[in-house]
């Protein structure tokens, strides 16, 4: 196994940017807690990610922060100001979402959103709002609803469409900010 020093020092946000992995909510750097021939293990409270040969081959992990916990965080988040002309996206269930991003040197440094109050949708928007800052715009635009859903297998089939709406709104908001 080849593991370079700069991989070890990557933040979870960077890992997330590359592979859509869960980011620790506070953006704390991961710690390589174990090494073996099979791979290494990064550990932060509430999250374990294993990979075999550096972050680019990392496997997706189930989010240790549940949809319900993200929903609670969403309720506590103060309303984010959205840029003028924010792109509102909607679905057939009368849900509306808009994201607004602030970029510096091609990297997202802040992300806000407004959403109707569907629990699943709010939670997924909150997850994106915590995870995406730190990514480049290209990385965020490559992030898919499937990546997000892989972190939340607890979302039942009837609610999985909310992830597509959230990610579509994220991409629309980013496109406006570029």
């Amino acid at each position, binding site marked *: 196994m080849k593991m370079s020093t700069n991989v070890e020092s990557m933040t979870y946000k960077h890992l997330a940017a590359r592979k859509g992995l869960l980011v620790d909510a506070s953006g704390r750097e991961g710690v390589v807690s174990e090494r073996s021939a099979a791979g290494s293990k990064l550990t932060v409270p509430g999250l374990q990610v294993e990979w075999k040969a550096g972050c680019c081959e990392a496997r997706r992990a189930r989010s240790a922060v549940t949809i*319900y916990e993200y*929903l609670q965080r969403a309720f506590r988040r103060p309303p984010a100001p959205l840029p003028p002309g924010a792109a509102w996206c909607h679905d057939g269930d009368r849900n509306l979402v808009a994201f607004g991003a602030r970029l510096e040197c091609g990297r997202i440094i802040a992300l806000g959103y407004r959403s109707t109050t*569907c*629990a699943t949708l709010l939670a997924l928007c909150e997850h994106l709002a915590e995870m995406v800052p730190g990514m480049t715009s290209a990385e965020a635009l490559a992030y898919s609803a499937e990546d997000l859903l892989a972190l939340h297998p*607890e*979302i039942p089939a009837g609610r999985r469409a909310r992830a597509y709406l959230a990610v579509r709104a994220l991409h629309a908001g980013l496109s406006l900010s570029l």
Partner: protein
Amino acid sequence: MKVAYIFSTQGHSVSYKLGRMILPQLEEGRHGAEVVGMFFFEDNCYLLLRGNPIGERLVAVAKRTGMLLMCCDQCCYEREIADKLFDGVPIGCFPDLYQALSGNMPDQVITI
């Protein structure tokens, strides 16, 4: 008369009022009103967790009559059972409930 039940309070709501009164009456076809939907809040959602014997009987009635069964989405996420409900039982909130009932509106909504 068409009715919808909302199981909001806890305690004996589902094990007693539903499990020993409403459900047996529905199974026997003598409830006295057509039940078009049931919505479950908080711990009442456990009734529709796969494997629950009362839930199993209720789902069988719902399949036979077309009655809507729905659980509160936040309640299910909080209890980590959103993906463990009987097949065909959705999670949702009031907009989903009203949308689902819009094709067969109840005359009365009864909160238990």
